């Protein structure tokens, strides 16, 4: 059967400057969102919504590692990502890396991102991007994805349902 494969191996740097791969997160679920720290609307709203959903999970949230993967390696260094995340969305770990490595990860997750002029910042640029959150299982195999039309409560319900599935159905 021809089917779509989502996700794959990666080699990036987390916002502490440590080299990480998919193996670094094995044993926990990973909730992955792609964005960039200069994002004015989509990322702040999504990171807030995802954080609220994790809050609603209570102790179960410990089973999930939230990851924020940049689509803008030029500006998003580990330090920039750490500063962006640690106060407002401390559950998330930022991941950055080389342009080819990040493009490979974007391709593996079918992430849309493009670079356009930013009318509000002639010196800078904007990067419209897709807003799906991906849930990877403890073996870092794709489990589900969630659109941004899902509010925090419904997302929490969906995550809870995935966490409750028996381990043998993983992957």
């Amino acid at each position, binding site marked *: *059967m*021809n*089917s*779509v494969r*989502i996700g794959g191996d990666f080699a990036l740097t987390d916002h502490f400057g440590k080299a990480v791969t998919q193996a670094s997160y094995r044993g926990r679920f990973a909730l992955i969102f792609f964005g960039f720290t200069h994002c004015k609307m989509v990322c702040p709203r999504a990171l807030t919504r995802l954080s609220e959903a994790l809050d609603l999970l209570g102790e179960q949230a410990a089973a999930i590692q939230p990851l924020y993967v940049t689509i803008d390696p030029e500006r998003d260094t580990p330090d920039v990502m750490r500063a962006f995340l640690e106060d407002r969305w401390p559950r998330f770990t930022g991941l950055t890396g080389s342009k080819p490595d990040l493009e490979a990860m974007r391709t593996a997750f*079918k*992430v*849309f991102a*493009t670079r356009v002029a930013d009318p509000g910042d002639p010196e800078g640029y904007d990067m*419209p*991007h*897709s807003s*799906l959150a991906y849930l990877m299982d403890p073996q870092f195999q794709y489990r589900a994805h969630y*659109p941004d*039309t899902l509010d925090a409560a419904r997302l929490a319900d969906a995550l809870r349902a995935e966490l409750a599935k028996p381990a043998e159905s993983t992957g």
Partner: protein
Amino acid sequence: MLTDKQAGHIRHMRNLMAQPDGDWSHMDSMEAGQEGLSSYRYQLGHIVYALGLAHFHHLPAAPCVFKEAMQAAIRKMRRREVWGYWYEASQSDKRIDPDLEERREQWHDPVVKENIMYSGHLHAMAGMYGVLFDDDRYEREGGLTIRHSPLFVGEEMEFSYDFSSINDIIYWQMVENGWLGVACEPNCIFLVCNQFPMLGFRFHDIRKGTSIAEEAAAGYRQAWQDRDALDRPGTMPMMLMVRQNVLVPGGPATDSHTGAIMHAWNRDFVREHRQSQVYHALKTAEDGTVSLRPLAMLPGTAESYEEAGKDAALDELAVQWSTPDFGTVLMWLSELGDSETLFAMFAHADKYMNPSWEKGGLYYPRNDRSYDEEGNLTFVEPLTGNVLAGYARLNVPDGLWKLYNHPWGKEHFRQPHLAECPFELDVLQARYDEQQNMLSLTLRPAIEEKVDARLLLANPGGGPCEILRDGKAFTTGEGDSIELRLTIDAQTDLQLVQGSGS
């Protein structure tokens, strides 16, 4: 009750689908190589949508009239004649991608990537079938597998798909493209072809319990609004050339086709912009019939057509028509519920486009000649003549919108209905009235004068039922189904009345 013309259109589409596989009589078009809008895939897709609308709105208790024809369309859709063009098209070309430096490596599989002009229809066709018949044949693993076994040259091909796997492939391409859509020919995202998978997503939600349609609608609106292309009056773009990031303008031809389908999921937008999109292309004759101005159908807005001035209008009769614009405007009018204009266009078609009856079926034969000697539009290509005229006659105002937004629930499939009926009979009425516990059917011979019929009435209700023929007691029955054998040589009413049999 269906009119003779409505019944005739259903019959013609059923006749086409009953032709042996490989027999495309009446369905061949001007363009070679399955490139134009009358290609088999578009006729097959729209046959399914037209028959689906007829079943949903007119003959809800007669699935047997439509089921085999829709199966045949989905089977024919997977024949090599229909999709084989893709191997050539997949390599791309400078005409559709001016910055192409080297042709791409070709591939056969017509579903795996791009080619939404094929996969989007197969997706919507299979989805509509499942929704209308509560039948999972295309949802089972491999249910939409595409095979080709060449006799002499080439390799065996088998591309294994089902409704959900095609749904996933299209969905993820949409995501990857930021919801602008999936390319038809390489590098070309046409708006119209991406409307059909929007139907498919909704049908997938209904059948499989997913919630893609809401996400798709929001994503699609946002993506095109970001390009200032779907939130302003005037024409919609025809397509996006991806690598060049160029929007190619559309016009009434593309607006009508796109709008007729988009109306299902984006009704407010289509209604809001209707006046600025197609009406300026309509041409009213002295006798009140309505046809189309060819130059106004070309890409551009009503304002740009006005600006072109009357000199341009003088050249209209020199235009050689080649696309199904008459048919797509009919579709659009039927969905938007402009019955007055629709009737006036049908009046033109019936006067100048040679309506023809064959084996009980009504169609407008292909006519490549654009105008008659008096300057009346006579051009008909097979998509309009075989299918879209019927689509528009069988649709009702908001017809696709209703099917998309308010499909049948499971209870519909438990109601009494006509489950089996000879192909040779036309069904003019098939409706179950819950208040009266009565199934009403009207049948007549379609081709021969007399039909010795075996009918199967399913879900009669468990208890005893009375069957009336033309208002008089005919027989009684009960059980899971009731088989009737009768000779029908004229229009005949049958009624199954639950709980009244002895």
